[in-house]
């Protein structure tokens, strides 16, 4: 096929509309734009937080201010965007209605919003096997299946609720994996985060259902700063899913979240994300700036943390879900599909920090670039001196659709123990004209052919997602690629 015919199919494929771009009419309670100590105190007061929380927030705020005055935002990523004006952001925005005690009391407009997104909060309507915490703008509006989980001693609730009901657990683990000094965005988040999800799985308990948080940005001009903390005690297991959408707006909105995972001896945490924040329009106008710090600590021996992410949204994605392999024989995994279409840019990857003996990590990254998209894999594999027999396998594959897009790979490998085995493989490919012609000769449309080939390219990643999410991810990938075929 002529390159141009090919190109046309890819373009059509990439130009499908974003179906979640609507705005809900919900009154919100917001702080004025800009950030100072008073705003931090206000946020803490609104949430009636204990003193340790306020103190921690203030330390974070002061640290962030010094970073902001000194160098500002980090600029090492392979991303181009105008400087963010931190004085214009609204740091706290919540639906006016107070957090409802019962789901029936939640603002019906919010319930309708989640219904429209395919996330009914009504337990009777839920697919069995998934408990949901829904976060609307900065506040958790409802968590399902709480009682059922409670019987097993599993705590699954909004972060605010955890601060009230389980302050000792929060105080012990908050910042233990991502300290407030970690990086610019993590500091900012620590100062102003308003909600998020909290999950605690006691010793020996296997969580019987998928836990899921659904994040929705609604208000204009507000940033979203949520924080998720998952603690899995000895020998426990939990699978956690996270989904995200936002309305279509012309301005860019900042999303700076922090996720911390703690796995004790023999525990396994599986964390899956389908990120579909609004990506901006075809010309690159609007969209979410997604600066996220996600890190897990395999604190105990034989613990395991698996990150699986499907990143199809956001104008800018800056995100490196990482694992600190502290316990001996612990395992870290990172499976990623990142798709950039139109003018989207992603700089994403992982860090695997091997501290314990016989620790193993696997990194599988699939980047797809279409339109004018730019996709960067950035990953660090670090083996410290006492991490004898550490093992890492990394595979980074890129697929380019069209001729205006870009793919980059920046692997960093630092090995300080001679017994380590670190492997890195990388490939870049295009969908060839011959492949497309072969598919068409069998009766497939160009669009279906591209969708099938791209899905095939990502199959190893989707296999790690819970069934229901895998189907969603595959569909999302096709939608996000619309108008990109060639």
């Amino acid at each position, binding site marked *: 096929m002529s390159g141009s015919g090919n190109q046309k199919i890819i373009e059509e494929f990439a130009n499908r509309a974003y179906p979640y771009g609507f705005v809900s009419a919900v009154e919100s309670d917001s702080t004025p734009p800009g950030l100072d100590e008073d705003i931090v105190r206000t946020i803490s007061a609104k949430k009636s937080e204990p003193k340790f929380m306020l103190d921690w927030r203030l330390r974070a705020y002061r640290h962030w201010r010094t970073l902001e005055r000194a160098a500002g935002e980090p600029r090492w990523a392979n991303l181009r965007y105008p400087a963010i004006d931190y004085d214009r952001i609204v740091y706290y925005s919540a639906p006016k209605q107070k957090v409802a005690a019962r789901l029936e009391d939640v603002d019906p407009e919010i319930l309708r919003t989640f219904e429209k997104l395919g996330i009914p909060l009504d337990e009777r309507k839920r697919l069995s096997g998934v408990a949901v915490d829904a976060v609307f703008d900065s506040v958790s509006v409802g968590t399902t299946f709480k009682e059922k989980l409670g019987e097993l001693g599993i705590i699954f609730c909004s972060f605010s609720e955890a601060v009230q009901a389980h302050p000792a657990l929060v105080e012990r683990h908050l910042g233990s994996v991502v300290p407030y000094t970690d990086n610019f965005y993590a500091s900012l988040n620590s100062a102003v985060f308003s909600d998020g999800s909290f999950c605690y799985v006691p010793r020996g308990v296997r969580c019987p259902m998928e836990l899921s948080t659904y994040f929705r940005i609604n208000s204009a001009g507000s940033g979203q700063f949520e924080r998720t903390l998952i603690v899995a005690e000895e020998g426990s297991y939990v699978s956690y899913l996270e989904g995200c959408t936002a309305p279509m707006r012309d301005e860019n909105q900042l999303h700076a979240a922090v996720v911390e995972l703690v796995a004790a001896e023999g525990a396994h945490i599986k964390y899956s994300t389908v990120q579909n924040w609004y990506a901006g329009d075809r010309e690159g106008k609007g969209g979410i700036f997604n600066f996220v710090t996600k890190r897990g600590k395999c604190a105990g021996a034989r613990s395991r943390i698996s990150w699986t992410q499907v990143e199809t949204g956001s104008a800018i994605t800056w995100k490196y879900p990482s694992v600190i392999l502290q316990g001996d024989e612990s395992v870290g995994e990172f499976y990623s599909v990142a798709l950039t279409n139109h003018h989207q840019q992603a700089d994403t990857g992982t860090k695997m920090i091997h501290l314990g003996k016989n620790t193993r990590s696997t990194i599988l990254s699939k980047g797809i670039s279409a339109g004018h998209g730019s996709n960067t894999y950035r990953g660090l594999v670090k083996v410290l001196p006492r991490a004898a027999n550490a093992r890492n396998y990394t595979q980074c594959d890129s697929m380019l659709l069209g001729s205006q897009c870009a793919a980059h790979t920046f692997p960093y490998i630092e090995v300080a123990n001679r017994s380590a085995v670190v492997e890195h493989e990388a490939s870049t490919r295009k969908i060839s004209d011959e492949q497309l012609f072969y598919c*068409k000769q069998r009766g497939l449309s160009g669009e279906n052919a591209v969708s099938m080939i791209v899905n095939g390219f990502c199959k190893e990643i989707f296999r790690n997602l819970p069934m229901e999410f895998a189907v969603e991810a595959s569909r999302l990938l096709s939608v996000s690629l619309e108008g990109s075929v060639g």
Partner: protein
Amino acid sequence: MLSIRKLHAGVAGKEILRGIDLEVRAGEVHAVMGPNGSGKSTLAQVLAGHPGFVVTSGEVLYDGRDLLELPPEERARAGLFLAFQYPVEIPGVPTAEFLKAAVNAVREHRGLEELDAMEFLTLLKERMKLVDMDPAFMSRPVNEGFSGGEKKRNEILQMAVLEPRLAILDETDSGLDIDALRTVADGINRLRRPDNAIVLVTHYQRLLEYITPDRVHVLSGGRIVKSGDRTLAHELEARGYEWLETAAEATPR
């Protein structure tokens, strides 16, 4: 079923087909033979609509419709099948999934209901016996890591599943050992029906020991220089192509 008239085609300014005339009726098997570079594969690719080739003049009617007007996927849905000389690998896409999508694209075009997974698997298993293929291949990515012979069998399997009206087999015999050749030929023979037609593009006549063609055409320098019945194939085997190439040069354009 297929009428090719004065077809001229080529790539990027280079003419390869220089006036092809060919008539294929339902129920017939035609063999198109010729030396390397004579335009056999180009003819097959042009009929299937490969975008790398440009048709400069002439016409092709398929069931009375202008075939050249249709994009390749519509030709396929209308029942035209090309068994590729070099089947293409599609990493990550399981063969069964690929074939199911193809079958359903063709069925949709014909106004038939989609086959669900169970119905499709039943069909697939039945057709796999035709070409003696190991079911394990169906979960492997399309043609990836297949041997040459396995790829060719996979082409015939796809033909068996898609049940084309007009099948063009481009050098399906090349690279096959004698056992594989026999299996493939058996499969093709069992797919012969009064309402379909098969065009075999081949360099050698050995495939024709197993599949008896109704007509044999010799292509040379982009034109059909001789047509005849099956005995022509034997004559070619005995005398080589040179005597015909000489004849071609003598033919007025």
